[in-house]
Structure formats: C-alpha cells, structure tokens
C-alpha cells in the first residue's frame, strides 16, 4: 500500500513550492478563517508568520529565491488598517522598488506576489492564493537565482 502511494506521488506533475509571509493580525487570521470555514486552497504555500508586513526585510524575499523556492507571496493588512498604524505603508514602498528591480534583472513577473487580506476575508485569501499558485505553476521551476552545486 505504501509503495503504491509513493509511486503515485512521484508520478504527479511538478508542483511549485511557494513561501508565504503573512502578517499576524490580518492575513494570518484570514488564512486561519479560511481553514476554519473549510475553504480549500492549494497546499503549495508554506506559511511564515510575521508580526507585520513592515517587518519584512527585502532580503527575506530574495534569499527565498536563492534557496530554491519557486514563488514568494507576501500578504499584509489593507492600507489604513495596519495594527501598527503604518507598517504596511512602509512595506508597500519597499515591495514596489524590490518588485521593479527583480523584474528589471529578469526574474519573471509573477514569481514574487503581494496582496492585502484582512482577518475577515477568508474566501478572498483562498482566491488570491489560488491565483498566485496558478501564476507560479505556469512559470515553471525557479532556476535563476538558485545556486547549483
């Protein structure tokens, strides 16, 4: 029985691995709500909880690409709703410049994604995760920054 399961798993097509940085007060709670409401969303994302999207050093996102993650997802509170008042506004500027620079250097648009999701938006969280996963799956495995040795 175990051999059958393992074989089946190995035959399946490639699934992207996406690391998701969710802010504790809004997005993580939103993801939790999606789970509690039994709303299905793709299991490709691995969630990392941070207190606020403003905590995110752009290095986290770049380092994820270097380590081999196929996609990165960042989610915070809606502008104006940040638990720490302006953390997400600070983060938005950082992400804008980082996103532009990554694309400029040739990282495919869609590998690194940003979104806002509040604690009450379980369904919206699931929809956007589905969208992000579909985009990354279409792009294929991340080969660019990954160091091969």
């Amino acid at each position, binding site marked *: 029985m175990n051999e059958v399961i393992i074989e089946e798993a190995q035959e399946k097509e490639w699934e992207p691995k996406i690391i998701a940085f969710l802010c504790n007060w809004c997005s993580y709670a939103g993801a939790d709500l999606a789970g509690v409401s039994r709303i299905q969303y793709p299991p490709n994302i691995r969630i990392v909880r941070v207190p606020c999207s403003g905590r995110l050093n752009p290095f986290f996102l770049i380092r994820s690409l270097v380590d081999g993650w196929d996609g990165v997802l960042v989610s915070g509170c809606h502008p104006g709703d940040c638990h720490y008042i302006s953390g997400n506004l*600070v983060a938005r500027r950082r992400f804008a*410049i980082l996103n532009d*620079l990554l*694309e*400029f250097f*040739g990282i495919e648009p869609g590998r690194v994604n*940003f979104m806002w999701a509040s604690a009450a938006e379980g369904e919206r969280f699931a929809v*956007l995760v589905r969208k992000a996963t579909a985009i990354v799956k279409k792009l294929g495995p991340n080969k660019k920054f990954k*160091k091969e040795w």
Partner: protein
Amino acid sequence: MSKLNLDNQKIQEKMREVARNLLKEKKVDLIIGYSEGTVPLSSAPVFIRKEEEVDKLIWNNLCYVNLAKYLIPNIKENVDGKLVDLKVGIISKGCVARSIIHLMVEHQIKKENITIIGIKCNGIINRRKIEKEVGAEEIIETYLLDDNFIVKGKDFEKKFNYDEYMNELCKHCTIKSPPKSDSLKDIIVGESQESYSLEEKFEDVIEFEEKTPDERWNYMKELLQDCTRCYACREACPLCYCNLCFVDQNLPTWFGKTSEISDILIFHMVRALHLAGRCVECGACSSVCPMGIDLSIINRKINRIVKDRYDFTSGLSLEKLPPMMAFKMEDKQEFMLEED
C-alpha cells in the same frame, strides 16, 4: 584651442582662486579637490592644507571620483589633545554637491563644516570605454581638440567624439553645477545652477525594459560576469557608508561573497535597492571599476522608479524627505495581485 579646453582652463583658474582665498581667510582648514593623475586617463583626489599647494588643483574631464566620499566619517584632527571637526572646502561639480546635500538630509555631515566650491562640469570621459578601444598601446598624452578627445601614444593617435564617449550617466545630466537653494546659499561659493530641467523620459531604460525577462537576465549576466567583488564601486560611492555592509554580515549570512554569477547579480541588485532614491548618478562606480563594468543602466533604472512613482530626484533639497524615508496612503500599488 577648443572651447571645451578654454572652459576647463577658466574653471581651473577660478577654482584655484577661490580655494586660495578660502585658505587665506582661514574659512576652511582643508580643501579636497582633484590633482593630476600619474597614469593616463586618471586623476587623483588631493587634500590641500596650505595656500602654496593650491596649484596642485586641476580640472579636466577625467575628474571622475565623487569627492563627497571623503566627508564620511567626519574629518577630525587632533588639536591640542582634542579631536576637532575640520572645516572642509570641497570642489563640487553638480553631482558631488547633490550627494553632499543628500548626506546632509541623512544627517551624516554637518552643514557648518562644509563649504561647497561649485564648478560647472561639462561631462566626464568614459575612460574604460576608451581604454578598451585603444587596446594594447601605451597612452602617453590626452587632450581636447574641438569636439574631440585626442589620445596619443608613441606611434598612434586616436580621436574620440566627446559627446559620444562621455560617461553614459553624464549624457543625461542636467544639473552640472551645485543646485542653488536658499537654505544652502551660505555654503556654496563659486558657480551654482539656478534652474535645471527635471523632465526626464528615461528612454534608455524603457528600451531595455522592452526585452523579455530571459533576454534581460542574459544581458545582466554578461554585463556583470567580470565582477571580482573588489567592492571598488561600493567604496567609491559616497552614499554607501554603512559601517557593516550587508555582504559582510554573518549572523545571519544573507548572500554569498563568491564570484559565482548568482552572488554577483544579487550583490548589485541589492546595492541598487539600497540606493533607490539616493543615487545622484555621478558615475563614479562605473569609472573606478577595474574590470570596466558599466553600471549606468542599473542606476538609471532606480532613478526612473523613484521619479515615476514618487516624483523624487535626490540631492536637490534639504527639506524634501527621500522616498524610502516616507510613505503616503495614495502610493501606487499596481503591482499587487489584486488592487483594491
């Protein structure tokens, strides 16, 4: 003699006069400027403390170092057993003055200690491009003639059109002498620029962005593959003044220090990220690179980003906050997965 040559000579005379007076009247303790280089196509920064040495100062189209680099950390000297901040006069073309202004905005240097000796720069020659084209011939002499930069060796003489062989960033420059402003009128002596155009279309960046992601990736790989990680670009930049650069951090180690292409690309990309809204497009990073890598397309890109998104040009005002030190509710967020 060509107009460019005459301009340079006039600038040089005026600069020496101003420097001499400043030292004579003891308004400054130290003057930082450029002196004649000992190898062709180069110039050497020089620190002058006495009136007699003022004739070492020169001005020509090979003064590529951004002298604002030497203002951090604050130049101190031991006077009667105490460390005292020196008053410094610094020869500034437009970009150098802009970097000084930006350093003041970031509270790295004190306004009282600086005197900006303004001069009007007509563009710096792209020395690496010329070196590569001259190849394996020893250069003995260089000079300006009409609109050309002449390079002379033992058995050869080559002409380079000045406008074509300027640094890429100098080609787009509109702020050629220190920008005039009320808050800085006490510290600018010499030439300054009243008005300048900030209308910038960034056509070269737009053209580059038309390429596909893979084409851009390959272009960047080819551009940066020679990088030896010597960090001359980082050290020559006045705005790279961190005590511990991100590449040197090791608890945790963020990115590798090797010369593998992945590490090289990340170093330059993250350095550009840290310079967003701060780079003054002086071109020193490309001029000092020993391997002749031209980083101008990256610098132009980050300046395009902050101009388009936040309507900001660095180093022009002591009051306006740089974009990475501020935020607005109405910031553009078209890059989000779903705009709301």
